């Protein structure tokens, strides 16, 4: 595993902020961000729509391993130099249900949270 593709919501400001933060961190694995609305997603991962990238964050490795929702978040942390230890902790059976709950809450309300935080929606631009 050398690279992770992060399929995020290009219309959600919070997701854009998270992406910017992730991209700034020193990483063990290369992270490539693709908004799920982009046609590139279907071209690169045929049949990915069946996994509903619009519902939850999806992370796909260069080997085709798919992680959804909280697992996808944990994999993002796993890619980062400073947070890999945290990915191990959060993946522990005792903490995973909590991680899942927080991720689901955030995913479901991401547009609302973005509004509360007064984040401006980023324009859909796959080159960014």
């Amino acid at each position: 595993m050398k690279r992770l593709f992060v399929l995020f919501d290009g219309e959600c400001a919070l997701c854009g902020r998270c992406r910017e933060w992730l991209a700034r961190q020193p990483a063990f694995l290369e992270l490539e961000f693709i908004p799920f609305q982009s046609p590139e997603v279907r071209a690169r991962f045929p049949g990915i729509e069946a996994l509903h990238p619009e519902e939850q964050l999806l992370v796909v490795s260069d080997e085709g391993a798919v992680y959804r929702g909280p697992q996808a978040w944990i994999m993002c942390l796993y890619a980062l130099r400073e947070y890999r230890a945290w990915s191990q902790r959060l993946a522990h059976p005792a903490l995973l249900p909590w991680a899942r709950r927080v991720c689901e809450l955030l995913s479901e309300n991401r547009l609302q949270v973005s509004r509360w935080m007064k984040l401006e929606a980023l324009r859909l631009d796959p080159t960014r």
Partner: protein
Amino acid sequence: MTPIVWTYFTYLLISVSLTVWVAKTLYKNGRIFLVDTFRGNEPLADSINHLLVVGFYLINIGYVSLALREVQMPVDLQGVLETLSRKVGVVLLVLGGMHFFNLLVFSKMRKRVLLHRLPPPLPPQTQVPVAAG
């Protein structure tokens, strides 16, 4: 020779031999640790080990020579022993501190490397084909 010169000589002898002993211990036992950390890459482990020991020598011998001068001149054997004991005690504490600092460096390095080698914490939920691109 005056008592203070005797104190100085004995102080130097004891402090330098202690430094050499601690450095040798560090060198010998740290090597095994480093070789394991760097997956059996012995030249790299030896190089890092050597660099650490050189730093250890420089700091300790530097401290020992800086702390040599004594303001209160001992006049008899009791004074010599007291001064010597105090000076060597401080050197021992500095050596101890440096030794633990080195252990900390070793364990930090090891943690870093182990983290790099760690497999993903979770199994994938499913598998998709990836088109080249």
